[in-house]
């Protein structure tokens, strides 16, 4: 079983959204994730980092930290900011809830993190920042992926 860890700290500016998801995708590559799994993780990273930039730091800048931990085929991903924090976490996590409809946000960020990762935890205190902890098992064997595909197709062809 291989263990591996990395930590990234970068400025909370939109230029770094692409960098952050590509860096995490590169880090998990040795686990042989499927293309779909890579895309899932990239989406989750993008959501958490974008939230830190727009909501946590309100686009005024700051630092974002990403920590990745691999244990066997299990990924733990932690995205942290020291921004304004979340008042009501349950409310914030409801699909379609957003405090920024004015800037074309749809309130789907947490819903996507929840859908694309196996586990999602949000820790936050107003004024102190926000920590997003996500977990996902990677490298589903091809037949399991095939099965998932068949199920999805049968649902959507109805």
């Amino acid at each position: 079983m291989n263990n591996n860890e990395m930590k990234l700290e970068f400025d909370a500016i939109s230029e770094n959204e692409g960098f952050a998801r590509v860096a995490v995708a590169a880090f998990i590559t040795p686990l042989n994730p499927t293309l779909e799994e890579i895309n899932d993780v990239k989406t989750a990273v993008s959501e958490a980092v974008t939230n830190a930039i727009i909501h946590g730091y309100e686009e005024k800048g700051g630092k974002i930290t990403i920590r990745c931990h691999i244990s066997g085929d299990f990924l733990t991903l932690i995205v942290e900011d020291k921004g304004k924090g979340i008042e009501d976490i349950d409310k914030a996590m409801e699909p379609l809830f957003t405090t920024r409809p004015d800037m074309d946000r749809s309130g789907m960020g947490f819903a996507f993190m929840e859908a694309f990762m196996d586990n999602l935890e949000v820790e936050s205190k107003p004024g102190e920042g926000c920590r997003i902890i996500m977990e996902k098992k990677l490298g589903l064997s091809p037949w399991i992926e095939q099965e998932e595909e068949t199920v999805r197709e049968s649902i959507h062809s109805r």
Partner: protein
Amino acid sequence: MVEEMKVEKEYLMIKMPEEIDHHNSVEIGKRADRFILSEKIEHVVFDFEKTRFMDSSGIGILIGRYKRISCFGGKVFAVHADRQIKRLLLLSGLEKIVEIMD
């Protein structure tokens, strides 16, 4: 790579870029709105043929344009969305307000 926009009759056609996130979504929304305000546009077509990555910022672009044109009977179309993008559209319930076509 930047998105391309052109007007064909009452349709605004937008070829979406390879990656759509908050870094470029604000500009795409603004450019689309300038077309919508200055030309006789009824419907907006988002073409995802070249798009390999999208997050909730893309959902925001679609909902934002829908809000602008739907009150005048306009429609929003999403074409050539790959599997991953379709998943995002369906998770957001956009099939209720956007015509999703291959």
